[in-house]
């Protein structure tokens, strides 16, 4: 007797749904569709309500449930595997690639991922997900997967995309370094990333300060104290370069008209006075004291540099880059004695439309557009073999 009112209430509530099961099983398809849509609306409404309530846990301090953690990683790993399937890695054992990658690893990666002899910051260890300490983890990924991750970054983690997406050559340089990371000794790492003197401290994910000494120490990690780019062609020789060109290039990095995931983040934080001081400093550095006898310049490269390929619409290089008997625009770089590898890369980037620069960059786009790889190689070797003394260096106004 006592539960009769409850039973009455139940029947009252259920009256609108009387025969629902019957109608769902035997009713018209329109009715079933409407029922399905209504269910969907109710469910998503409930979900929204839950999100609005503020009860969803987003605290990094609480971490993930093991199941969530597994599901997220499973999704991420599958996505990287599938999306990197069509990427073919270039040869990655080139020491200049490794060196270039090492310099950027110290600037942009080591703070979160650690390095040989350098633990991750305690701060980043409390992220969810925490960035892995990389040296022992690299072997879990293929080079093409590392390339994909470094280039694209990973959503919902703190892993950023490469700042200059067109510069895949830089991403590969970083991957070349990562491939060497397992088992690398702290001494080797410091030598690669901080330079032979290793006086510089590891920067902490921020633009170097404008204090000239600290700034130069940071530049010297890659460009060398002598501005000669540490010998392998990973970094250009800056010593004795024209001040106007250096300043225009730094400004181009700062404003983003010259694209580089390595240089842009460093230069973007500097004010124009610092850029001027840097340009002046490197322009004033002397030529190398002892110069190894340059290999004989390739004859084909010389003809190309002097005459270009008129029938293919390629102008000669010497009119802008020397050697000439008349003075040349101070905004045009000196390239005699530059590393051939560096020159070839710049020509490829110009040809492929991936390299901007100062307001003169479009002249190079039209000049390099019709060069093939062989011609680029010849030209780079020709200019690399030119003696430093062929540079046109009247005193610059200070």
């Amino acid at each position, binding site marked *: 007797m006592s539960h009769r009112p409850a039973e009455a209430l139940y029947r009252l509530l259920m009256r609108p749904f009387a025969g629902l099961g019957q109608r769902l099983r035997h009713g018209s398809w329109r009715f079933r569709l409407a029922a399905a849509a209504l269910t969907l609306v109710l469910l998503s409404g409930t979900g929204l309500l839950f999100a609005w309530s503020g009860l969803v846990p987003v605290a990094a301090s609480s971490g993930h449930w093991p199941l969530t953690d597994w599901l997220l990683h499973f999704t991420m790993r599958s996505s990287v595997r599938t999306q990197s399937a069509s990427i073919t890695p270039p040869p990655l054992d080139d020491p200049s690639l490794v060196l270039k990658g090492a310099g950027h690893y110290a600037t942009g990666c080591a703070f979160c991922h650690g390095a040989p002899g350098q633990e991750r910051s305690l701060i980043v260890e409390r992220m969810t997900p925490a960035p892995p300490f990389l040296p022992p983890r690299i072997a879990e990924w293929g080079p093409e997967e590392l390339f994909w991750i470094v280039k694209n970054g990973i959503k919902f983690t703190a892993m950023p995309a490469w700042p200059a997406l067109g510069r895949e050559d830089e991403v590969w340089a970083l991957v070349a370094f990562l491939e060497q990371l397992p088992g690398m000794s702290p001494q080797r790492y410091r030598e690669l990333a901080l330079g032979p003197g290793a006086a510089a401290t590891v920067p902490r994910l921020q633009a170097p300060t404008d204090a000239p000494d600290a700034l130069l120490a940071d530049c010297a990690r890659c460009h060398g104290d002598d501005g000669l780019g540490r010998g392998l062609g990973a970094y250009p020789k800056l010593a004795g370069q024209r001040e106007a060109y250096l300043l225009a290039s730094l400004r181009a990095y700062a404003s983003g008209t010259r694209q580089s995931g390595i240089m842009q983040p460093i230069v973007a934080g500097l004010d124009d006075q610092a850029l001027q001081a840097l340009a002046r400093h490197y322009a004033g550095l002397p030529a190398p004291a002892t110069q190894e006898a340059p290999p004989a310049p390739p004859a084909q490269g010389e003809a190309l540099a002097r*005459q*270009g390929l*008129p*029938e293919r*619409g*390629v*102008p*000669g*290089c*010497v*009119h*802008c880059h020397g050697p*000439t*008997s*008349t*003075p*040349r*625009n101070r905004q*045009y770089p000196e390239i005699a004695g530059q590393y051939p590898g560096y020159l070839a890369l710049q020509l490829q980037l110009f040809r492929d439309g991936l390299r901007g620069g100062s*307001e*003169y960059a*479009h*002249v190079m*786009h*039209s*000049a390099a557009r019709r060069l093939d790889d062989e011609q680029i190689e010849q030209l780079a070797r020709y200019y690399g073999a030119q003696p430093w003394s062929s540079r046109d260096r009247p005193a610059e106004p200070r």
Partner: protein
Amino acid sequence: MTVGSLLIWALVIGLALYVTRAHPEAHGVRSARWLIIGGGVVFPTTVLTALLIYGLMLIPELRATGDIDRRIEVAGEQWWWRVRYPQENGEAVELANEIRLPLGERILFRLSSPDVIHSFWIPSLAGKVDMIPGRITELVVEPTRTGTFRGACAEYCGASHALMNFQVVVMEPDAYRDWLAHQATLARAPTAEQARRGQQAFLANGCGACHTVRGTPADGRLGPDLTHVGSRLGLGADALPNDREALIRWIGHTGEVKPDVRMPAFGMLPVDELAALAAYLSELE
């Protein structure tokens, strides 16, 4: 030929008047048959065949390359004209975007193209002849009066096809000889201070990688020879008039004047440097 066509016209009109006004009644079967077969088949076939043979006989003389007085080589390039005047000493004077001809001489144009199909057309002097990559086409012209005529590319050849024009000047033979002798000389050294700075800017900025100014280190072969550019009637294949203002506009805004043009614009140069360049180039007469 005019008299012949007038006679035929008078004959046809006369016949029409005869059958409609003079003898509107029906003709006999026999006379009608003669009229149709004779006037409709035999007569036109005879006349047209004779005209065709006469016309065909004229062609060899029109195209004859044996008794020509002079050759001129013209290459149509996107979007300008490279014009070479072979000399007796075997060398050629290379000029651009303007053609000068001596009155009364038979001139053979040898036409070519290094890139796409163009068509060489001086409407007042001759018909169109295509310029086809990989081969040489020929055209004989014999100008009969002096004057300046317009020439154009008559085959769509890319974005700036409509801006690929040139002027043709037919001159008295003596004046022509003097003109060509002057064009064959080296560029004169700049005199005015501004023009001197313009020459320095021309060499310093690498203009010589694409342009030749004979007598200076500028020896590029990609673009038009500028040794005597100041003497030309137009700029950029007649896209602009040839004055300093237009030179500044051309150098600084090349792609806006002529879309897709190969020459990169040098609008980043300081204004006074552009003015100096214009002064230098207009002095190259």
